[in-house]
């Protein structure tokens, strides 16, 4: 490409277009599925905007621990953090789905609860707390849901080791008489 063309592209903004946004959050596309990337302070506002726009149901809320995954792709302007809280919403009229991914830092694993917007998020957020130790603020009942109350650690974190029992393989036993 000639130098003049490049200059023209930069000046008109075509080489570096405005990042795509929707509902006040940056947008990315993952295999033709639309994903929103709000930050923690705007998370609830973005979800409320989604609800007002016809996303009547919160399908699920879960978390991902990106401790050992460096292949994650995020739009420019989103700072990657260790945890990610993901929520999925559905619009029954437009037949569309929306995923919201929020970065949650390891040193302060807290995020606002969606309970006031979608009461159905209650059990899912409890599971995310149980498995990842992410605290949801203003949640009515923030306690473990699957593991026992006195369990130590959060099993789905990547630095939580899986236990194993050594299995010794022996020759097949003698035939039954």
């Amino acid at each position, binding site marked *: 490409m000639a130098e003049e063309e490049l200059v023209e592209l930069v000046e008109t903004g075509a080489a570096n277009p405005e990042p795509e946004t929707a509902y006040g959050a940056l947008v990315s596309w*993952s*295999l033709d*599925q639309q994903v929103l990337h709000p930050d923690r302070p705007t998370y609830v506002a973005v979800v409320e905007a989604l*609800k*007002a726009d*016809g996303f*009547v*149901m*919160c*399908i*699920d809320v*879960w978390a*991902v*621990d990106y401790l*050992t*995954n*460096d*292949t*994650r*792709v995020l739009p420019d302007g989103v700072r990657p953090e260790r945890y990610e809280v*993901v929520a*999925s919403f559905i*619009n*029954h*009229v437009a*037949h569309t*789905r929306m*995923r919201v991914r929020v970065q949650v830092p390891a040193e302060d694993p807290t995020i606002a609860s969606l309970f006031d917007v*979608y*009461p*159905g*998020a*209650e*059990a*899912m957020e409890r*599971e995310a707390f149980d*498995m990842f130790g992410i605290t949801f603020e203003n949640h*009515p*009942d923030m*306690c*473990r*849901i*699957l*593991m*026992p*109350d006195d369990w130590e650690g959060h*099993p*789905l974190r990547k630095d939580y080791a*899986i236990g194993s029992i050594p299995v010794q393989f022996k020759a097949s036993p003698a035939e039954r008489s």
Partner: protein
Amino acid sequence: MTAVEAQITGWGDDAKVRLRDGAVLRMTEAEAAKGLDNQGNPDDQRTLMNMGPQHPSTHGVLRLMLEMEAETVLRSKPVIGYLHTGMEKTAENLTYLQGGTNVTRMDYVSPLFNELAFSLATEKLLGIEVPERAVYIRMLMCELNRISSHLLFQATNGMDMGAVGAMIYGWRMREETLRLFEKITGLRMNHNYIRPGGVAADLPDGWRDDTLKLIDSLPSGLDELDALLTGQPIWRDRLQGVGVINANECLALGVTGPILRSAGYDWDLRRDEPYLAYDKLDFDVLVGSYGDCFDRYSIRLNEIRESVKLVRQILEVMPSGDYRTQNKKVTPPPRGRIDQSMEALIHHFKIFTEGFHVPAGEVYVPVESPRGELGCYIVSDGGPKPYRMRMRGPSFVNLQVLPHMMHNTLLADTVAIVSSVDPIMGEVDR
């Protein structure tokens, strides 16, 4: 309520107020032992009762904490986790080929749907298409699985209500379905039959006759169930008007499947977000009007009839061809090739030891399981194992309606309500 109405009105503050207070018991066992009401005052009139996890009507290991006043349930809390085996963690340590054996054990009553959601998500990440025959085999198996799952519901629901005859009738028909599964997949349950790339094996000889024989025998069996239950006054008295939930509350709580449809909300992923080839088939989505236990019973009963209709259509149009993709990176080479070709041997070895690599990315794929929306979310880091796999189990989310359905009902009705939600604890706890 239709989807359009829900969008216009939202589900409103009335649902929210009812959902926030009153029905859900939010306290630990230590607090519960103190016997205080929600304002922290001692209350002699209230008793806390424990139901389960060992109780014949809790469908496995569901435990309920019930706050009672005489025989009326005030607040309640489902306590779960007794069947938690860390399957999402296990999934991170199994290759995509092994993953099917893991997910199939989640909702053990409809295992093929778990495998389907997992396979569809993997295939979307891989960017591969499965052959048409595989698509139709998957649909055939899933609809048969829907039949067997709803038949199990008919059996257990009847048993919970004291209609032990219904249990025998439902079980007998389900067993016939499982026999067909055994012939096709090799196992009655936990099949690992639907795999990334297609299905594990082609349909065996005589599958068409066996399937026809099965679905020809079903309608008369369903009519028997109808005669045994549907019109009977005792059955109606026990179910009608019990465990009522409206569409607003279902939407607010994320409830899907027959429970959402029983509240008069017309939503079925097979029709509204078609996957596989459901858009080429003709079937009806059944919707209730009262949102009570009876609606949920009759919706499931008639969904069996719709699935029979679907199976007949699939039998007519079942295409020939491959039952799995010919992508050599995903599908192991045929046994005969291994003796002739070094590359085939290497491929075979790599696929079964290391596993195939899946491009990095994240994807969520939903399917309509007999209990509602079953979604699989996979994050891949480019390796042969999922970096994270999340299963959105419909039973897990649907369980949240229990306190709302049970609020201000009699203790005897809790059994009817738990039964009508049809939770499978393997999927709730994973």
